[in-house]
């Protein structure tokens, strides 16, 4: 990558201008019509003025039906409202919207999940203002969306509250100094004892005061303390003798009481909620405390204390998410996705600290002469009980939780260390190591320094490191991304655009960034030779890369047929199971020694 020329368009005006400026060049016109994404232009008012072939093929609409009609009419009514009340106004005020998740109604009335990115071009001399839209198919995005939003938000909130509360408990003894109630540690001790005594009817209720921070901030901590004391007293008065009331964190209480089953726990929770919602006079103002309550009954078996607390905590998060001031009961017949994610998140945090992460490397082979030119470093998690986990099983969670920062830092350092090892081995001294950067890493102001530090600590020549960024992360904050990539280029590091073709705005955005390499997404490579559409897309990508003067890498190459097609198109480098699966570092060295190669040979 460092040997290629900078990313400058081959033609003045560049590929990015194609959608607006029309058929200035036959090749670019074809690129526009058969781009890997749908392109439309509309008037300021949303009337469609241009649409490319890809969009027509994808939706089944006829060009003559679309021209002059409203773009919003292509969306189901809910999305149309969102577009009209949010996206269209934002286009007017900021000039662009990115990655709006919508469905597009096809000619046969079926729905196609899509990501829409749009930019508004203000009126110029002789031309009215227009809006350019880039539409990408996004079925997976749509599918993950709901689950992610619902579960991860809850999990994160709950995990934060739990982590903070646990820190508190370690500092204090077993009792809370304000209320005199047991704290989290005290509660755990009590629960453990009750369960160890063989009781099978232990219910735990977690009571979370709604809006407590507002009381504290507005009326002062003295009033806040008074409210807490009132709540503690009311909880104490509402439970049976022998029950335990504890204060888990600032605004979180717990009650342990005998509950035969979940219905008994629910009844108790509702009684407590009622007791809490009687008005309190604080600082002369009458305030009604509202609370969310999560209830759970201890399951049989080992680890019950921790599990029942956890289940009640998850339930209370659900109560909060569902509008607060209500009761939610953990249903033992359903193991919630949120709970699983929460557990996994904790395990991952420990896993990173305890050195459970591994790097595997997938060789990248130059098609021209079959030489190993680089590897992509891929993280694996050696989970203590579930075995070796692939990134797909934990990356998303890490990205959503913020753990991706630590994960990314580990991968970068480990990959640079490994690359430096190879650089000292004459057998593979020129092997480049590619590392994936998350969106968070790319926008982290400390990234350039982290890369500089890693390179110098392990004394790796910068040109042997390639950083892979996705189109999506470039578009999240293009100005910052461009500045970061320029700084990385100055270090001598290579920059690759990953998953090319699956993002959006490819043509528009690319030339703004100093890119050395495009990685064509595996989903298109898979269809090579089998699908005319995919073949056209891959060819368009390769041509685009050549026009920009950057190297192309095809991912997911699995068959000889695909390899031949890529070679015929002029693709530079290939990566995939046809050559090697991701392997450990020593296997890479052996691999390199075995094939100094003349043509790209499949694995034997």
């Amino acid at each position, binding site marked *: 990558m460092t040997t290629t020329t900078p990313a400058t368009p081959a033609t003045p005006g560049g590929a990015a201008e194609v959608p607006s400026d029309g058929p200035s060049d036959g090749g670019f016109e074809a690129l526009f019509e058969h781009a890997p994404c749908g392109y439309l232009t509309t*008037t*300021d*008012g*949303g*009337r469609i003025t241009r649409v490319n072939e890809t969009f027509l093929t994808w939706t089944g609409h006829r060009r003559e039906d679309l021209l002059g009609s*409203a773009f*919003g*009419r292509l969306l*189901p*009514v*809910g999305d*149309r*409202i*969102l*577009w*009209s*009340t*949010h*996206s*269209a*106004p*934002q286009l*007017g*005020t*900021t000039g662009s*919207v990115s990655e*709006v*998740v919508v469905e597009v109604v096809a000619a046969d009335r079926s729905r196609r999940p899509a990501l829409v990115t749009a930019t508004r071009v203000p009126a110029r001399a002789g031309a009215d203002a227009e809006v350019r839209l880039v539409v990408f198919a996004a079925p997976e995005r749509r599918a993950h*969306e*709901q689950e992610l*939003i*619902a579960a991860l*938000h809850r999990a994160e909130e709950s995990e934060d509250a739990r982590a903070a509360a646990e820190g508190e408990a370690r500092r204090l003894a077993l009792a809370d100094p304000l209320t005199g109630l047991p704290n989290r540690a005290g509660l755990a001790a009590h629960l453990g004892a009750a369960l160890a005594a063989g009781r099978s009817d232990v219910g735990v209720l977690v009571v979370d005061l*709604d*809006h407590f*921070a*507002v*009381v504290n*901030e*507005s*009326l002062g901590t003295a009033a806040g303390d008074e409210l807490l004391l009132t709540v503690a007293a009311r909880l104490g008065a509402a439970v049976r003798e022998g029950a335990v009331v504890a204060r888990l964190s600032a605004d979180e209480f717990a009650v342990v009481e005998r509950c035969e089953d979940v219905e008994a726990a629910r009844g108790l929770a509702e009684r407590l909620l009622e007791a809490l919602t009687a*008005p309190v006079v604080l600082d002369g*103002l*009458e*305030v*009604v405390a*509202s609370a969310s309550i999560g209830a759970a009954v201890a399951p049989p078996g080992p680890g019950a204390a921790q599990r029942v607390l956890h289940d009640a905590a998850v339930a209370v998060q659900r109560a909060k*998410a*569902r*509008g*607060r*001031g209500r009761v939610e009961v953990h249903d033992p017949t359903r193991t919630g996705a949120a709970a699983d994610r929460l557990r996994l998140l904790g395990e991952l945090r420990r896993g990173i600290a305890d050195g459970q992460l591994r790097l595997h490397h997938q060789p990248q082979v130059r098609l021209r002469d079959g030489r190993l030119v680089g590897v992509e470093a891929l993280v694996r998690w050696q989970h203590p009980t579930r075995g070796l986990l692939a990134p797909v099983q934990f990356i998303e969670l890490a990205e959503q939780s913020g753990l991706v920062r630590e994960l990314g830092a580990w991968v970068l350092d480990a990959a640079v260390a490994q690359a430096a090892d190879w650089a000292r081995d004459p057998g593979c001294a020129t092997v480049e190591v590619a590392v994936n950067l998350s969106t968070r890493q790319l926008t982290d102001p400390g990234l350039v320094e982290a890369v500089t530090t890693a390179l110098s600590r392990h004394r790796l020549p910068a040109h042997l490191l390639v950083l892979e960024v996705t189109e999506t992360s470039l578009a999240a904050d293009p100005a910052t991304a461009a500045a970061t990539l320029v700084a990385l280029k100055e270090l001598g590091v290579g920059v690759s655009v990953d998953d090319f073709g699956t993002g959006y705005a490819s043509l528009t955005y690319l030339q703004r960034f100093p890119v050395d390499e495009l990685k064509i997404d595996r989903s298109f490579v898979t269809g090579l030779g089998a699908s005319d559409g995919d073949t056209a897309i891959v060819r368009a990508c390769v041509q685009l890369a050549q026009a920009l003067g950057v190297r192309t890498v095809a991912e997911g190459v699995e068959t000889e047929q695909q390899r031949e097609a890529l070679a015929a198109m002029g693709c530079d480098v290939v990566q995939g199971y046809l050559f090697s699966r991701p392997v450990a570092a020593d296997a890479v060295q052996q691999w390199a020694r075995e094939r100094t190669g003349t043509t790209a040979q499949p694995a034997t």
Partner: protein
Amino acid sequence: MLPGQPVETARGTTPEESAVTTHPTVETVGTAAARHRVRVLGDPAGPVLLLVHGFGTDQHAWDRVLPALLDGHRVVLLDQAGAGGFDPAAYDRERYSTLDGYAADLVAVCEELDLHDVVVVGHSVSSMIAARAALRAPERFAQVVMVAPSARYTDDAATGYEGGFSDEDVAELLDSLDHNYLSWTATVAPMLMGNADRPELGEEFTGAMRQLHPGTARDFARATFTTDSRELLTRVSTPTVVLQCRDDALAVDSAVREVAARLPHATLVALDASGHCPHVSAPAATAAAVLAHLPGRP
């Protein structure tokens, strides 16, 4: 409530104080001002402009027109039931199953703050809510301003009326709100973060959106899309200004014209703005149109 978000109320703003100071307070639970997170800005002695946001947004939708309105006017903003910072505990599904429930809220706020000669500006469906408020308490309102209004969103074959939506559209919308509201709010919030110089606005919005109960959006959507206000408009005695935009996909031309035609005292104004949200996309033109038609102006 969101910690850190200022709560300004009528009680916190006295005439002696600077016009737009903010006073974080905790309201005694139960006041309409607290429930609706009412903010009173501008000139305490000026005539009252009550700004009422539409479906899917909250009072911050008016942020861009505020600078042009604050001078010389007492501007009252609120979050309607189920939106923004509205107190979830005060949400009553039955009350908010019709537009009348929302209209009663507007009247309650006017009474509690003792507002008179109010110019109520309603966006989208809230123009119909404003019309209902004017019918309930005509003595409080001097004028209704309807921004991109529609009295009926569905087509009506019997009268040849074009509302822009089919019955199937509406059925599907209500269904999709059941299944997708969380993703809806998550989609909307990042879009609202377009305001790069005020990132805290995005945070505030995200928080506000996440508090929304999916059911509340569905109630509002149902009330919005299944109500026919055409007949009711003929009884509105309050002078009304109707602001119409070009290329409005939600309040289609025919629907806006119908609103003006049904109202006994309507002035139809063609705004130099396109789309459904002129107060966001063309704030200067919107504010100018509101100010130009205030009661008492020549």
